[in-house]
């Protein structure tokens, strides 16, 4: 069980029943949520060897849901797995007596205790879907009456960033959340879609009157349609839109162009993300790379403090190289004169 704040009155504890049972593996339901990578193979092998020799010495913790014939494991999954493996290998208990697991039976956990326990497991679990985490977090927030990241982090073990991501998911209406819970992986919308789309939606609705009129729900639907139609090939591509906007912030004409493109992106179902925004990101990136290359080049040369050389051949070679650099830089500087649109200049 997760370590719960003992002073927090709203967080219930696990209640022991005082019963110790000896269960066979068939009487136990393994936890389907247990993290595989918690089970270090070497440690598991050592534990199995130990159990093979001495049996299970430390009782596992189980509960029995009402109406359920079997017991669910709260703690002791590794011991359980070792016994299952020993049975499969035909290495039961001594004198042919089947191995049993001593088990402390506790009362079924309350909803919140169960959820917090799940969180403690899932902090170590790979591939845990984000949407179920968000929905569970929502219940924790509602039941315990707190939305504070610090308090939630302490209770659930989730990082600040994870909590923020969950909160972003929960900002979307249920009909969109449901799309990430689709049992069919082919039609399921990945939770990251919403997280990456959120800033784009915020930007679009803040800056475009037609999109504001369209409404947040319809605008979101348009993004979903685009994604399903492969016009958003990766949810990461949403970042290009935000990057385009951020890079153009000091450049009003480009900024206006980016915002017009954002509006078009929503309204034109055929416009693909990269087709729409690469020009802003790529060009800016090229300019910035060139700028840092210039700075780097100068700094490097200055470091050498090369004002003379005694070797005649080397001097000649260096002067030629510097001349080439100078010629290229001059041609580049000349090309960048005047208008920022080379084609306009030709006209």
């Amino acid at each position: 069980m997760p370590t719960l704040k003992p002073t927090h009155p709203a967080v219930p504890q696990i209640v022991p029943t005082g019963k110790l049972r000896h269960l066979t593996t068939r009487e136990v339901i393994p936890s389907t949520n247990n993290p595989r990578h918690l089970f270090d193979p070497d440690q598991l092998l050592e534990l199995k060897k130990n159990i093979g020799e001495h049996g299970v010495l430390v009782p596992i913790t189980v509960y029995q849901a009402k109406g359920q014939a079997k017991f669910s494991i709260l703690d002791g999954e590794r011991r359980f797995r070792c016994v299952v493996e020993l049975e499969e290998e035909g290495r039961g208990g001594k004198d042919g007596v089947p191995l049993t697991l001593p088990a402390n039976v506790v009362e079924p956990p309350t909803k919140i205790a169960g959820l917090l326990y799940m969180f403690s497991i899932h902090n170590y679990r790979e591939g845990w879907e984000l949407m179920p985490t968000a929905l569970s977090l929502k219940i924790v927030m509602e039941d315990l009456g707190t939305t504070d990241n610090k308090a939630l982090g302490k209770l659930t073990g989730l990082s600040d960033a994870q909590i923020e991501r969950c909160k972003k998911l929960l900002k979307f209406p249920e009909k969109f959340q449901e799309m990430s819970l689709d049992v069919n992986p082919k039609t399921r919308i990945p939770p990251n879609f919403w997280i990456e789309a959120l800033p784009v939606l915020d930007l679009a609705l803040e800056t475009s009157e037609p999109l504001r009129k369209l409404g947040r729900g319809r605008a979101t639907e348009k993004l979903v349609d685009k994604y399903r139609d492969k016009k958003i090939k990766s949810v990461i591509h949403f970042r290009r839109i935000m990057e385009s906007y951020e890079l153009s912030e000091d450049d009003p004409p480009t900024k206006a162009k980016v915002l017009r493109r954002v509006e078009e992106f929503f309204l034109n179902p055929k416009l693909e993300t990269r087709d729409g925004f690469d020009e802003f990101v790529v060009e800016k990136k090229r300019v910035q790379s060139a700028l840092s290359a210039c700075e780097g080049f100068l700094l490097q040369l200055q470091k050498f403090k090369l004002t003379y050389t005694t070797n005649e051949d080397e001097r000649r070679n260096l002067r030629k190289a510097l001349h080439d650099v100078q010629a290229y830089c001059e041609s580049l500087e000349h090309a960048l004169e005047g208008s920022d649109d080379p084609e306009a200049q030709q006209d």
Partner: protein
Amino acid sequence: MRWLIHSVRAALRCRGYKPQPLSWLSASRWIKQFDKKDQALAERLLSNVIYLSESTTREVLLEQNAILMKRLKEAGLPAKNLIYVSVHEAGSSSPVMLNLLRDGAFLEKLGCKLIDGRDTLNLVKAMNELGEGALIYVDDFVGSGNQFCTERDFISQNFVGTFSEFMLAPSICEEAFAKMDERGIQAFAGHKHVKAERPLHPESDVFDEKDRLRVAAICKGIDRFGLGYKGLATMVVLYRNAPNTVPVMLRGNVNQKPYFGIFPRTIDLPIPSG
């Protein structure tokens, strides 16, 4: 005249098959489409079909449900803590079975909740509201249990509270029993469809080896997945439809050409012209 006896018997026994009504004439036509030497095998295969009529399906579901509800009540779970869940998409058998149960067992009147398993948010809400209870999945037939378990494992990530899980169906294959048992899902079925009662299953001795291989070869000649999904070769046919696990000899080809089935699946029937 043996074919006539088999045809009449089949027509009487399998009355009310919805996708395509079965008459003694259609049964005899079905038998006669096979080579003469194979007709006796087709007749024997037909006589091993386990047909669940509408009334039997209803009866079995209600009976199993009554047993389950009684047990849950004794365990401290009243009807209002029970959530009945249909497990597949609308239009499939599961919602139909759930509706049948709802009306026959007065589930709504008793305060039970009925939820489409794909409506995960509503399921989570109901579980959150109750805190503890039972999830009762309802279907007409469970074959390998693969599809059900995959979907259930995905939605189970969202489960809240303490809920025991059950599967209620008129017939469940033994393969699915094992898979559900691993997950702690207890099956309530009127009929456990064991491999031994499936003539074309390698672990069955209903047919001798030679006959089994001959019929299996006919099936594989009709379609490469001739023994049905995952080679389960099940013999249960429900009044609403034949599962996709039945041998293709009984189902026929898609569009019922070149081989027509005696129990075609709805999706195998040709679309009527006009």
